[in-house]
């Protein structure tokens, strides 16, 4: 019996939830600095704030939570885009929004040099005043998300055909805008001095270096509502996987679904990329692995991909932090080292992939 009943749903969800809970709780305890448990407990009991507690709660915990949220959001978006585009190789970055976010971030890193170059006298002052940003978002993130929004809007405008959103046009304009953004990033890197090039390169690898909770918390106000909206589309996405006409005949508002999924997925991607940079392969791999375990039914796949993606990225980040400690690898290296071979395996095993 492979049908989705209430019991099957809760059993799988409980299983994923338990694994996610365990991984998120255990990951902060692992790291290059060994925590001394006895001392930790006594200090905790006395209400003292020690170095170990600081490492645990101000450094590792926000990082682990960020890794979980980023992995969860990217995996969910990947699963949604794969159904929306009816293409198993789609990722959250396929539709170009991440390219815009990256360009925005790189542009922000280049801004001081640009201001100096054009000789705008008050420019540096102005930059200082916006550096801290607004609310939970700092200037860097806001710049990144602004570019993401601009690119998403452009893709949307280019993809409307006779009042309806065309999937083919979405894919083509997304990929094209992504390439344009990459070219712009290359131009900025060419114009930058070596120090900035280094910073840009490191950022483009994707990473989860956050200090304190601000970066982690800034993901929440966008990621959580957008994810809930995406999760609510599960039933309809099952139908769209059987073709748009069939779905429409079953009572799915196909065009509305496309718009909701495009903008929901773009919001999740933009909010994650603004903090972590473009971490690759989570959005491709996690949905595929979860689909192998739980089947293609999106009502189960989407929540499980959310939890599974989080677990996957927390695990990769823990490996990245500890494998060559005290040095840290970019987490993108680990996800790609695991994801690349899996991608190739998919290509070899499934010659019928469209």
């Amino acid at each position, binding site marked *: *019996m*492979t*049908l*989705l*009943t*209430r019991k099957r*749903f809760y059993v799988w969800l409980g299983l994923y939830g338990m694994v996610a809970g365990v991984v998120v709780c255990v990951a902060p305890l692992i790291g290059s600095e060994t925590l001394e448990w006895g001392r930790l407990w006594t200090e905790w009991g006395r209400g003292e704030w020690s170095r170990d507690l600081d490492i645990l709660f101000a450094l590792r915990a926000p990082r682990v939570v960020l890794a979980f949220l980023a992995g969860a959001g990217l995996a969910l978006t990947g699963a949604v885009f794969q*159904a929306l585009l*009816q*293409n*198993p190789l789609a990722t959250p970055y396929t539709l170009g929004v991440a390219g815009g976010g990256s360009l925005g971030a790189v542009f922000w890193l280049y801004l001081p040099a640009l201001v100096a170059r054009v000789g705008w006298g008050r420019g540096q002052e102005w930059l200082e005043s916006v550096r801290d940003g607004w609310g939970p978002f700092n200037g860097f993130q806001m710049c990144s998300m602004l570019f993401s929004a601009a690119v998403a809007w452009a893709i949307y405008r280019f993809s409307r055909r006779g009042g309806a959103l065309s999937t083919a046009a979405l894919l083509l304009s997304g990929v094209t805008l992504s390439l344009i953004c990459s070219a712009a990033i290359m131009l900025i890197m060419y114009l930058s001095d070596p120090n900035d090039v280094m910073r840009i390169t490191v950022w483009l690898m994707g990473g989860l270096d956050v200090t304190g909770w601000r970066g982690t918390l800034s993901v929440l106000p966008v990621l959580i509502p957008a994810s809930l909206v995406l999760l609510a589309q*599960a*039933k309809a996405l*099952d*139908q769209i*996987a*059987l*073709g748009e*006409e*069939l779905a*429409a*005949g*079953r*009572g*799915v*508002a196909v065009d509305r679904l496309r718009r909701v999924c495009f903008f929901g997925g773009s919001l999740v991607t933009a909010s994650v990329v603004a903090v972590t940079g473009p971490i690759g392969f989570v959005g491709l791999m996690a949905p595929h692995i979860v*689909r192998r375990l739980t*089947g*293609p*039914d999106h*009502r189960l796949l989407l929540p499980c991909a959310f939890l599974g993606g989080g677990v996957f990225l927390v695990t990769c980040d823990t490996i990245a932090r500890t494998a060559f400690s005290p040095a840290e690898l970019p987490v993108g290296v680990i996800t790609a080292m695991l994801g690349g071979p899996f991608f190739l395996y998919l290509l070899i095993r499934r010659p*019928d992939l469209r």
Partner: protein
Amino acid sequence: MTLRADKITFAYGPTRPALRQVTIAMRPGELLGVIGPNGSGKSTLLRALAGLIACPDGCVCLDDAPLVSFGRKALARRIAFLPQNTEAAFEFTCEEIVALGRFPYLGGLGFLGGEDLAVVRRCMEQTDTLSLAGRPLGSLSGGERQRIWIASILAQSADHLLLDEPTSALDIQHQAEVFALLQTVSRQGNAVAVVAHDLNLAAQFCDRLALMSVGKIVCEGTPDEVMRLTNLAPVYGGNVAVATNPVTGGPLVVVLAAERLTTEPLP
């Protein structure tokens, strides 16, 4: 209790009208065959009847109420539509595909209740696909796959079924099986309309035929009334002949020469 199109007109572009003043009604318990050459508007008519395209002129009505006055899901509970060449993008199992037909009845998180499961089972029994339940759709033969798709629209529990060329890409044996299945479904009180290219099969199984040409229904009636040389020749070109089928006693259409068949617009 019927689905009816009343003088509907539809065009895909300013230059290409697909339906011109088409009037047709489906009746409960009847298998209606829509026949005609490629591009004559058969699929468009089916889409219009399913409420998937909005016709600027005329009206498609269900129980005398225009389709646009129904909600999407309410409509899907009355009309089930199987498009041409349906495929699944992911590796669903057969019973999952059939169960997806319950979409218009699911609320909230979309769990299948006891009644839904019973319907799924009944539809799979009826299409003789119960033994395929756990298999991935991709591993099935063409005929089995088509039976699964039919089971999946049966699971929609609609009393109007519209099928666009469900027998294309099937061998003669499986084509006949599909038609026999649709006949059975219609005998249970459902109104079934099917687009078909095989005139002889359509004549053998359908209760009524509608012959289309260049966006119009040029002839409608029982197979014996429609399958006449005077009706078919102008639509399919002059190279067809109609004989009596020695086995069934019904009409038998034969194409005589391999000359290019033309569809002449009728006055």
